[in-house]
């Protein structure tokens, strides 16, 4: 029987919320932050793993390939994915690819898929990363691959060469179907990821199934430069100026509650959508 191929796109994101960034180029100094697998990518991987398990119970074979574009240190998340049950991992990494916007990120990911996995059945992506959180890579990748796509899946049922997806978008509960090959992005609340046993991560390091591919091997033009070729350009990046005042209230419960309503009653009542008596006064 034919192997069913699932390709999951995963991204490494910085773990911390305080980030070192280059104010001149507007790009992150990612090498200074500790990385982790983007939580939405983990959900996509989990969806792939669950499909693989369901199929295995029926005696059907599935191969899960994880694909990431990022700096060399993003290898870590491929090992992690492998320890969780992925079969193969590819890191697309090259200085020339750094700083790609979603237009070029999807172009580069698609380039690899078209070249090396042209027979992919199902492509899975997260719906939005935790760092630049555009949610654009999935839909643009589908466009590049000329395959249909369904976004924000809460549940995927594979039925032969077709998927049925349940989703909840903008107050609509929908059931959609598409023939494969196709791409699905996973909702932020669906497919809660499993955790890898530590031993698994160690074992994964021993494998040759994880490889790194550079721009030349991808067949990109030698003048390819992601920063220059991206249609969008980041002018600058800054922290929101409205720094929190971090007001500290101390005392008895009654005193602090009175103080809270005295100083912030307006904010509270407006969020509640109800008037409170004596707004701005002691209550």
């Amino acid at each position, binding site marked *: 029987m034919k192997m069913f191929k699932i390709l999951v796109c995963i991204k490494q994101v910085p773990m911390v919320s305080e980030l070192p960034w280059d104010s001149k180029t507007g790009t992150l100094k990612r090498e200074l932050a500790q990385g982790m697998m983007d939580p939405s990518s983990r959900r996509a991987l989990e969806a792939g793993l669950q499909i693989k398990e369901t199929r295995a119970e029926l005696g059907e074979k599935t191969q899960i390939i994880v694909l990431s574009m990022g700096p060399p240190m993003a290898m870590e998340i491929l090992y992690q994915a492998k320890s969780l049950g992925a079969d193969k991992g590819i890191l697309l990494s090259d200085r020339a690819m750094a700083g790609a916007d979603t237009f070029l990120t999807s172009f580069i990911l698609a380039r690899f898929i078209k070249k090396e996995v042209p027979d992919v059945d199902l492509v899975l992506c997260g719906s939005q990363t935790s760092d630049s959180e555009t949610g654009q890579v999935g839909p643009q990748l589908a466009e590049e691959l000329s395959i249909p796509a369904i976004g924000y899946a809460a549940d995927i049922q594979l039925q032969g060469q077709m998927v049925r997806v349940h989703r909840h978008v*903008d*107050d609509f509960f929908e*059931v959609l179907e598409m023939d494969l090959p*196709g791409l699905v992005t996973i909702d932020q*609340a669906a497919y809660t990821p499993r955790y890898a046993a530590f031993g698994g991560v160690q074992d994964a390091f021993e494998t040759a199934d994880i490889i790194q591919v550079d721009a030349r091997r991808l067949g990109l033009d030698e003048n390819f430069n992601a920063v220059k070729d991206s*249609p969008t350009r980041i002018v600058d990046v800054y*922290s*929101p100026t409205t720094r929190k005042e971090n007001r*500290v209230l101390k005392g008895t419960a009654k005193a602090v509650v009175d103080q809270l309503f005295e100083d912030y009653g307006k904010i509270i009542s407006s*969020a509640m959508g109800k008037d409170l008596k004596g707004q701005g006064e002691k209550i």
Partner: protein
Amino acid sequence: MTTATDIWVLGDYRNYFQSRVTLQILARATHLAASTGGKVCAVVFGHGMDEYVGEYIAHGAEKVYVVDDPALKTYAVETYSFLMTRLVEKFKPATLLVGATRFGQEIAPRVAKQLKTGLTADCIDLEIDPKGRLVQIAPSFGGNLIARIITPHKRPQMATIRPGTFQELVHDGTAKGQIIRLALPTDMPTEKIRCISSEYKPSKAKGIEKADIVITGGRGMGSKGKFKKLFELAALMNGEVGATRPVVYANWIGHDALVGQAGKAIKPKILFAFGISGAIQHTAAIADADFIVAINKNPNATMMRMADVAIVADANQVCSGIIRAIKENIRD
């Protein structure tokens, strides 16, 4: 490049009464057009949408492009993106703005790709720079960073706009606008997504992800019995209750309420966090809260340092105190 100046807004009317994002963007477009010149135009696809066309004109659209056909009755991403691309290629607007609803976030990246242009996601502001270019201002890292992005060479300049960002213009029933009706192209692609069912259920209970007030509780609430007080507070405030992982694991509340990396992200106008230490796996999902009140015995807890108001006191007592204060002072 032609000297295109028009600003287009995709008419996203499917969820009209819940989301007025198209009207909000039209308002901002009107403001931008005052410095760039060009017309503010809405683009609407569907079947029988004249009432929305009228609304768009009353809220600032000077021109509305309409493709009305029974074949367009339900939103379908491939069909709609094909049409949008076709219209942009024909009329060449300088800018195309789309509401960052889920529908908008699904269709805009497709259109941008087809047009080989850039797209900035979920903008919270739009400006015009001295060269007349659109500056697209978008948050990232859960609101911890703001990026200003331009599309220097490609047109149109495209952005999705977060709902609720701009204030819609006052309805002007006397406003006049030009309506341009276009026929469905004959070479429409067949839609590859089959819609088996689509049920509109506007949520009354907003759910924790959409609630304006969220009350979260952590291990510091002490017990399942004491944690229940938070539900009473939430009911009084029209809010929803969320929790940290230890609380969910202890079964004080269901998994639906989990806030954090393994659960949901929230963006309330106010967050009350009772007895929560502020581990990164939790706080990563609350960065979009506008205003945080934290209650903790320990003034040095991370949650307290992140808060707008940090109340150093017993979580249960403060919860009861707020319940009492609201009961005594609410006006119905």
